[in-house]
């Protein structure tokens, strides 16, 4: 399929009704709900006594910051890695992918 490599081009076949998640404004609703949920779990840290094994675990929202930071770090490093290791699909000469 070489016809579409643009990242977010929707290609719903002719005659097919778009579904709920095909509308960008609904995706936006999901994203907003996600942000609210994340905020709530972070706020919850003030409402109970944490039993962490390490001192740093008692920082409010520590796991959220660590999770967000880890994810961003992972992706940024992977993008750099791609520059070094990415090859054409036929690199090994046996149609590897």
């Amino acid at each position, binding site marked *: 399929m070489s016809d579409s490599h643009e990242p977010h081009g929707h*290609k719903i076949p002719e005659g097919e009704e778009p579904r709920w998640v095909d509308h960008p404004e609904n995706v936006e609703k999901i994203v907003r709900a996600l942000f609210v949920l*994340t905020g709530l779990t972070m706020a919850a*840290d003030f409402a109970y006594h944490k039993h962490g094994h390490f001192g740093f675990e008692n920082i409010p929202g520590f*796991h959220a910051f660590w999770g967000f930071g*880890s994810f961003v770090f*992972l992706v940024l490093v*992977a*993008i750099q890695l791609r520059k070094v290791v990415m*090859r054409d699909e036929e690199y*090994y000469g046996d149609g590897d992918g």
Partner: protein
Amino acid sequence: MVEALPPGLILVLGALIIPFLPKGADGRDVLGKTVMLVLPVLGFVQILLLPDGYSLTGTAFGLELELVRVDRLAKVWGYIFHIAALLSAIYALHVDDRLQHVTAVMYAGCAIGAVFAGDLITLFVYWEGTAITSVFLIWARRTERAYRVGMRYLVIQVASGVLLLAGTVLWVQGPGEGSVLFTTGAFSFETLGDAGPAALVILVAFGVKAAFPLLHNWMQDAYPESTPTGTVWLSAFTTKLAIYALARGYAGTDILIPIGATMTAFPIFYAVIVNDLRKVLAYSLNNQLGFMIVGVGIGTDMALNGTAAHAFSHILYKGLLFMSMGAVMHRVGTTKASELGGLWKSMPKTTFFCIIGAMSISAFPLFSGFISKSLILTAAAEEHMTITFLVLLFASAGVLDHSGIKVPFFAFFAHDSGKRCEEAPTNMLVAMAGAAALCVGLGMFPGPLYDLLPYQVDFNPYTTTHVITQLQLLFAAICAFVVLNKVGIYPHEIPSLNVDFDWTYRKGLPMLVGWIRRVGGGAWHGFTGASVATIRRGVDWVGTHAGPAGRLGEPWPTGATAFWAAVLLAAYLLLQFL
């Protein structure tokens, strides 16, 4: 009665009946497929009935063998291997290929036999058995490429067995003192200096199958090349057998902690950028093995329980994820992310099951990964291993990226590829439903699994702290995905491949050999040419001087001969007086 046959042999021998069964008049293989379904059930019942402490011994080549050893550690693996075999068999029911069915069931049987093997020779036989039977699941694609991938896979797998045998010989002649019994903790060592050569060689043998860093590429090479159903079988047994062997022989070996931690962190960078989603899952599998190996390295009761529990739940959710991608492969013909998207409209049930697998591997509360991985993380925290703990937490966010988000998102959502297909076949859906039910069941009611674990467990994963902190980690990581996607930083799916350490033997080594042939060949020709010329000159010289025309070739006069004889005799006489 149940002891009559060692565990695993029900499957190995039972599968051999399948080729001799008649097929129906319409060509349907009802009998063969029934046998394939019944064998894992029979084997499971056998494990249920075998008492702890049961042992079957024998002698061969003057060595004491323990063909069967039943204890709690072996039984956990015994149960889950049978469950995996049954689910995989259901998943493969639509396939009419007896070669795959027979070798797959034998493969599962060998893995089960290996888990219950009480000595290194028996372990070796089953160990090689898993290699030889499983390669057919790759070759079953019946393409030139699958043939080549299968050969690479087979060489590496068999080499692992050869190393195991070499290590066994070293062990028997050294610290084993003539015994080949594979006792618990037999090879554990404190530092590399303490480890004898036998323990190190066997560690590498296990490490190949467990996909240690730099020994791992056979998995990412082979698993995406198997058939849609074959990969599901492959994902369950080989690597988890290696984890069992490590847990049995190397518990508490410190070096396994950095090795395992590297495995949790290193493959996930690749998982972010790999295009083939089955290959993404292979990298993700590598990362999950890392958690289990850290557990073995920590070696406390809680950590080893964590390894066993995580192997158990991992086999289910990883199998489920491979099943969902196998269904996509079966219907669409590819699992390349760059060619997929929007499939939820065609395959809503498969999408649903895939998401359950994704939430389980991401360790959402109420799913199986949550109740097993937390044992390992808690064990690391209790031993105050700060760096290990933080690396595992980083890797947990990474799991969420590749298996939790990337696989379901790019296959079933993302941008609509416009592809429309049928829902997965019923048997595939049944197998996925079974695996999904177990993932959720274990997550909600971990008690029965905890009761199976090798050591007494006093652990409750559902504390407020644990649930809240885990949700924070996961939700915040999803937020990171959304943000990176929105600003356009998240890597797009590009048709490509990524070179990994396998470059060394697929490209580097052939290049080196070619270079040696070119450069070395010239030198060799120069060397042989010069040598021949030297020898020829020597022969010519002898010919000139000793030939018919040469000075040495002349006939000597009698007088000269008598003179030289007299000189020799005189010299001899003189020597007598000295």
